[in-house]
Every structure is written in C-alpha cells, then in structure tokens.
C-alpha cells in the first residue's frame, strides 16, 4: 500500500513538474519563472483552497470535529518547536538563535505541501475534511511566538522592530488573511453561490499547481546550490524532523478520532516546514539568525522530501493505524 501510494503520487503530473523544475535547477538551466508569476500563482492557490475548504464545510456543516482538529493543530504548532529546538542545538550543532529560528519554521506549516498532500489524497479518492484549510491557517503563527520565546535571551539587546509590529506581522500576514478570508467567502456563498467562479478556482486548480510546483522545484534546487553552512547533520535533521513530526501528527489525528485522510493531513501539516510566512517574520524579529540555514533546510531539504517521499509515507501510516 505505502509503495502503491508512493508510486501513484510520483507519477502524478504535479510531482513530475516539481521534479522537472528541480532537474532544471540542478543542471543550472536558465529556465526562469518570473517572481511575479510565482506570487500570482500562490495568491491564486491560497484563494482557491480557502474557497474550496469553505464550500465543503458549508456542505458538511460545522462540526465538533472541526473544533477538536483546530485545537490539535494549534497545540502541535505550539509544542513541536520545543523538541526541534533541542535537537537542532544538540544534534545539529547550531547556536541558540539559529536553533530557535529553525524550530519556528518547522512548527509552522507549508501551504504548498498541504495542497500537494490534499491533491494526492483526492486522486486516491480519499478526500480530507474541508475544515483542514482553517486548521492550517491557524497553525501558521503559534510556532513563531514559541520560536521567539526560545530565543528570548537574544531579543533583549539592541534596537529592533517594535513588538507590536511583530505581532501584527504574525497574525495578519498575507497568507493567513487570504486563506481565512477565502474560507469565509466559501462558507458564506456555498456551492451554488460559488458556481460561476468554479471554472477558475476548481477546474483550473491542478494545472496551475503543476506550474507552481515547477517553480518550487527550481527554487528548491537553486537554494540547495547556493546554501552554505548546511552541514550533513542539518540535512539529516531536515529529513528526520518531518518524519518524526509527521508521526506525531498522524497519531494525534487518529487518537482524536479524525478519519484516515484527515489524520493524514494533520500529519502532513505537522511534518511541513514554513518557507514563506516565518522567514519574513524572523528576518524582522531575529535578524541575527541566518536565513540561509533555515530556508535551506525547509525549502531545499524538507520540502522536496515531503513532496516526493514524506506525503505517501504519512498517508500510508494513517491508513495503517486508522484502519
């Protein structure tokens, strides 16, 4: 089963475009996705998953399961950085500040990993619950706060961005607002009200995701080439951390009674590491941390691992322990 899931995932056009992008980046092809196109696609994707999540919750009705999953997600985002922080200092041999910054990335989530996981589950006819979009949005920021607390000794010195700005950035960052806003719109208009816009947001979704993953492959490969200071220990952690966090996420999801695909998504979220929202906040609040390290791990190691191997693994795990 695990192998089946893995092969069918690797053969989907989405993942193949990711691999194509990675190949182009590694051989230093001059293939280049303009920055504005990448941002445009990510806005589209977030609006689409928010909207679709909202519509499916409108169909299914609000449930206590939703509230429980939300709590579980926030709890994971708050707690996962702590062991990661310890492992990064002991095993990874990085200093306190960088360990805190990296831990915040791993406690938070990657929207693209979530989307890819959901698409793979859909292709397997195992659709996860629509409310997981909201759970994901809620998981983006708690880890940031923990990361900053873990690094607090560093925060004392020197002039820095006022705290309020940091809070503001964490709570109102673009992806949270867009995800939750589109979710609310989907909830408000329902399936029928959204019908006129579905050709773009539903039919177009997987094709755009292909082009987006092409870009992500390029970016991950280039980042891997450009990253210095990325030791083998850190590369190892970039694989071990998501696997361990994925196990925790899947298990917690199963324990609190989520169905198999939804528990798998909780595992995927726990395993994924942020490379969009968190780096910007860290650059502002922990400028002493090296963004090359955290981005290098999250984007060049963990993201490709999750998209190709991790996601099928977490799905197989959820299927096995959930059955």
């Amino acid at each position, binding site marked *: 089963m695990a192998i089946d899931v893995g092969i069918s995932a690797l053969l989907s056009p989405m993942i193949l475009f990711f691999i194509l992008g990675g190949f182009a980046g590694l051989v230093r092809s001059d293939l280049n*996705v303009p920055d504005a196109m*990448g941002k445009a696609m*990510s806005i589209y994707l977030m609006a689409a998953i928010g909207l679709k999540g909202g519509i499916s919750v409108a169909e299914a009705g609000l449930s206590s399961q939703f509230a429980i999953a939300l709590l579980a997600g926030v709890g994971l985002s708050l707690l996962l950085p702590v062991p990661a922080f310890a492992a990064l200092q002991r095993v990874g041999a990085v200093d306190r500040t960088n360990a805190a910054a990296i831990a915040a990335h791993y406690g938070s989530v990657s929207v693209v990993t979530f989307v890819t996981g959901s698409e793979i589950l859909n292709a397997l006819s195992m659709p996860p619950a629509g409310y997981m979009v909201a759970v994901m949005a809620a998981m983006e920021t708690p880890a940031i706060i923990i990361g900053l607390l873990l690094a607090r000794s560093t925060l004392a010195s020197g002039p820095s961005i006022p705290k309020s700005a940091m809070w503001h950035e964490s709570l109102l960052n673009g992806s949270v607002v867009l995800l939750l806003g589109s979710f609310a719109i989907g909830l408000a208009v329902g399936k029928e009200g959204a019908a006129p816009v579905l050709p773009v947001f539903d039919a177009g979704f997987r094709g755009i995701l292909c082009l987006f993953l092409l870009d992500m492959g390029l970016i991950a490969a280039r980042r891997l080439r450009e990253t210095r200071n990325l030791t083998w220990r850190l590369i190892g952690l970039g694989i071990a951390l998501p696997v361990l966090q994925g196990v925790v996420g899947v298990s917690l999801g199963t324990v609190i009674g989520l169905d198999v695909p939804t528990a798998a998504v909780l595992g995927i979220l726990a395993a994924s590491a942020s490379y969009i929202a968190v780096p910007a906040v860290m650059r502002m609040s922990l*400028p002493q941390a090296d963004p090359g390290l955290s981005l290098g791990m999250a984007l060049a190691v963990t993201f490709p691992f999750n998209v190709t191997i991790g996601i099928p693994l977490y799905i197989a795990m959820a299927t096995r322990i959930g059955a």
Partner: protein
Amino acid sequence: MTLNVVQRRRIEVLVDRPLAPLLAELARNSGITSYSLLPVLGGAGHNGVWTDEEISGAQAKLIFLTVASEEKTDRLVEQLAPLLDSHGLVLFLSAVDVVRGQRF
C-alpha cells in the same frame, strides 16, 4: 551654475526587504522623513550569492536611498552602526548636490 546648489550627503543602505520599515523608523528618529526604495535583482557578498527569485521575500533586498544634511546623516549613521553586522546591512555614503537645499 546659476542655481543655488548646496551640498548634501547621499546615504544608501542595502537591506533585506522586511527590514525596510525599520530603516524608515531609524531615519525618522534622525529627522529624515524623505527616502526612496530601489529594487535590487541580486548580488554576492560575504554571505554568498543571492537573487530575488525566491518565493519567500525574506531574502530579497532593496536599497534605502536618502539624501540629507551632514548633521542628520551623522545621526542616522550612528544609529545604523550597531545594526550593520547584526542585521547584515551594507552602507554607502557619498556627496551629492541639490537645489532647493532647505528641503533636505
């Protein structure tokens, strides 16, 4: 030149994009309220090569450019000095002539 040209300082700070508001704040503290932000495509330095094609804006940089009096410049540079290393800033100062000197 028949126009009333006066000399001012041109300050350029290469900075990560998320830090631009911090620079604007420090400039304000030094009495500088006018500045321009110029895009930068990429570069190389002690911390390696970078380009702005990253999906995360966190690595993209810009140039914070302001022209100000010697006095305000000194105040700003003094505030910036401790951040140069911790925040990875690069600072250039040069001479510039302006008309309507009272504005700067």
